[in-house]
């Protein structure tokens, strides 16, 4: 799968708190389509806030890892791919939320695939996990 490597890079960047690495795999604007609303990350600051939120969640408990697998890819012309992704979070090898699925769309920018749209219900386990008390808004990846 062409986008698995980008997805893995993003997951490792979130676990390491490495925004520069994370940003390599993200396009701006990036659109988050939830089941109740659409959120647009159209600035570096907005992308950074989203990153900080998710990286903070993963860092809150030692040993947490984000496990994401591309199940299917749909090419949309030559420069776009929509990937069906299964995600879950593990802590010391044990799943702490059930796997759930989302769609991530990637755009080919130069020679790199960059995520530019995520379709994921807010009601998903990850979104619920990411909306713990003290966390503003939603985050889905």
């Amino acid at each position, binding site marked *: 799968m062409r986008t698995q490597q980008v997805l893995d890079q993003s997951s490792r960047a979130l676990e390491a708190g490495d925004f520069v690495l994370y940003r390599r795999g993200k*396009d701006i*604007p990036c*659109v988050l*389509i*939830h*089941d*109740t609303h*659409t959120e*647009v990350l*159209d600035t570096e600051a907005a992308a950074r806030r989203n990153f900080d939120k998710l990286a903070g969640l993963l860092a809150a408990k030692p040993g947490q890892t984000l496990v994401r697998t591309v199940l299917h890819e*749909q*090419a*949309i*012309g*030559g*420069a*776009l791919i*929509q990937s*069906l992704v299964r995600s879950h979070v593990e802590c010391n090898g044990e799943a702490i939320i059930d796997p759930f*699925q*989302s*769609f991530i*769309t990637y*755009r080919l*920018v130069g020679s790199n695939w960059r995520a*530019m*749209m995520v*379709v*994921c*219900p807010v*009601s*998903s386990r990850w979104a619920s996990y990411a909306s713990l008390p003290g966390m503003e808004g939603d985050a889905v990846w």
Partner: protein
Amino acid sequence: MVRRVQEIMDRYCEAFENGDFAAFVERCCLPFVSVWDQETLILRDHAALRRLFDREYAAIRHMPGLRIDYELLTLAPQGARLLSAVTILSGKINGNPAIDPVTVVKVLRMENDEWRLGAVMNPLMARLAQHGEMSQEGGR
């Protein structure tokens, strides 16, 4: 559900063919997201959506008699209120192929008891834009 989504897409086709913005906008979410090969347009209100619609309509108006068709290939629910639809867009004039088939993905959300279009990923738009003098700034 498949039939309902196909009906919605057919209605969008008619709206474009007829330049009928009211029919088009009736079932769109805001912000509406139009994804092309190399850019993403965020249409935050009806005025911006109108500008994009007019430009897209201008792009196909140079092909009189064009009939657009969306064939629904797959429909993937994401929870109860989101759908991702993979479609094949094609176009004919007097029964003859005028637009080569291209994969277009649409994202729909259930709002006010109806499926509404939230995003379209259409690699053809950049090519159509060349015909219709669509601005790079689009409706952003």
